[in-house]
């Protein structure tokens, strides 16, 4: 099995070196860069499988990198890696197109695992991200709002159940075991949630964020 090719984008040189060392032998780090401009050039040139992306950087941050790369290299996937667990950062980078969100305290092997899953086309949700999503979509079953695309604005019972297990700290394969479904099905549910998070025009999500004072 070939190792996934990874570009590391973070404005913190020390942190890049640390992640490089931790991922050594687990993935193939083909480049690490520290600015938005360099990152776009490097990713377009090297066409990695996955970009490990810092959320907060000068000149627009991770979202700007995704916007710069996506039209030219649509096959490249992004996994956000951040110290921040603030909802506005999580939601904004996911909305920009990242396939997952993990915090920087994650261990090397876990990070490598997350990279492999993103490279394989799956979504990666940390417990906290799962919590945010559940919170954002909370109370939707009973108060069905009149929306243009109700399918995008609601989670199915199964998706909700999967997210709750992620928030409770279960791994995908443990969730599959508990719910009596295959790991592939768990991943399909998570990807569906990610799609809803990215695509629904989400006045509910906006209302949720406004209520909590995260966006003006």
């Amino acid at each position, binding site marked *: 099995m070939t190792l996934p090719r990874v570009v590391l984008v973070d404005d913190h040189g020390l942190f890049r070196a640390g992640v490089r060392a931790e991922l050594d032998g687990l993935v193939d780090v083909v480049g690490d860069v520290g600015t938005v401009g360099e990152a776009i050039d490097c990713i377009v040139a090297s066409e990695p499988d996955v970009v490990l992306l810092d959320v*907060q950087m000068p000149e627009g941050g991770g979202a700007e990198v995704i916007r710069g790369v996506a039209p030219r290299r649509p096959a490249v996937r992004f996994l956000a890696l951040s110290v*921040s*667990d*603030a909802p*506005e*950062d999580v939601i904004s980078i996911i909305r920009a197109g990242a396939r997952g969100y993990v915090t920087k*305290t994650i261990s090397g092997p876990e990070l490598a695992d997350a990279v492999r899953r993103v490279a394989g086309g799956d979504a990666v949700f940390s*417990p*906290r991200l*799962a*919590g945010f999503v*559940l*919170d954002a979509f*909370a*109370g939707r079953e009973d108060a069905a709002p009149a929306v243009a695309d109700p399918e995008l604005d609601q989670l199915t019972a199964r998706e909700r159940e999967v997210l*709750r297990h992620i*928030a*409770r*700290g*279960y791994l995908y394969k443990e969730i599959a075991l508990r719910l009596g479904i295959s790991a592939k099905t768990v991943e399909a549910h998570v990807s569906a949630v990610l799609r809803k998070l990215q695509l629904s025009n989400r006045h509910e999500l906006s209302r949720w964020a406004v209520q*909590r*004072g*995260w966006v003006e």
Partner: protein
Amino acid sequence: MIGGSRPRAVRTSAVVTVPETQPAPFRRDRSRGILGGVCAGLGPRAGVDPLVLRMGFVLAAAAGGVGVALYVLCWALIPAGDGGGRPLVARAVGRRESWMVASGLVFLVLAVLLLFRAWGVWVGDAIVWPLILATGGGALIWRQSQGATVVEPPPRERARPGGGAGRPRRTLRLARPSLGIVALGAALICGGALVFLWLNGALDLDREVTLAVFVVVTAMTLILAPFWLRLARGLTEERAERIRTQERAELAAHLHDSVLQTLALMQKRADEPREVAALARRQERELRAWLNAGSRRRDGSSLATALEAAVAEIEDAHGVPVELVAVGDRPLDERAEALVAATREAVLNAVKFAPDAAISVYAEVNGERAEVFVRDRGPGFDLDAIPPDRRGLRESVLGRMERHGGRAAIHTRPGEGTEVELVMSG
């Protein structure tokens, strides 16, 4: 307002009597006043009902405007009292319907003036009308320039100087005199001056002189305006800079008290990795709480905040990271408190039996139903093998939940970690 001769008498008497009979210096009483608090301040000192003084001032105003001039003089010279509160008119104007109040006042004043005019108590159109216009304009401008001193930024922005997301929001809200009102005031004053000149025939007498004066004044304005503007802008910038400095100082003080202290401690204890990790974790939590102070709603005590506090306490005491994810929230009543206490016991149990494993706590509040899951990735155990007399989980968690109308379940198997499920419904 009072009669023309009274204020002077009162003022001299005030000067004489202050040291002996009344130790308090003479002040305007703004909270009980109507316009500027002059009469409300004067009255008690002179032993007269303020109403009498007010009537005196009104009469004097009608008699050639002397009252107005005297009142304005008193207003300017006598300092305001220490007590808070604003005069009646200021309060009325400060309200939301200020325009209606203002127009009402204008009509009221007009009515009074016309009444005096009809009675013949009148100095003459040539003085009174321009004077009123100019007074109105002057009042508007002065009011604006006084209101411009409020520069406190909103508390929320002060609370999170860096912004939760590292994007500093520097929207400094400086109260600026709104140009419209100042312009209106200036126009009123100019109009008053012109009407005065016109009514007194000054404009007809010598058109050339008037024109010359007008041109000179315009020229002066054009010359001086940029200086004024620059001065005003300089003041604004200086204010903004001062606020920035203040914020920087606040940030520096916070970092010094917290982060630098922790870093120093960590260097000292570099040989004890567990201790260092606990210190770092604690500092991280504090810094996050500080950065997010403005964005998260943390009003009073709720289930989520209580859980946060309980988890933080355990992290501090035992040096193990516990990840808490909370969805939804509810007020902290007796049952919620029981839930928090049971959660704490469950986490402590996980710490005790799975000291090196990751611990996650997930809390979800959905309407009346509150659930908490405490999960560790430790060795797990055989539930049936625990002797029934052992308190621990059984008593402190299961018993506590049942006493408060909830229930608890333990899911575990050797080698698969442990999860404690706590449910409180209703």
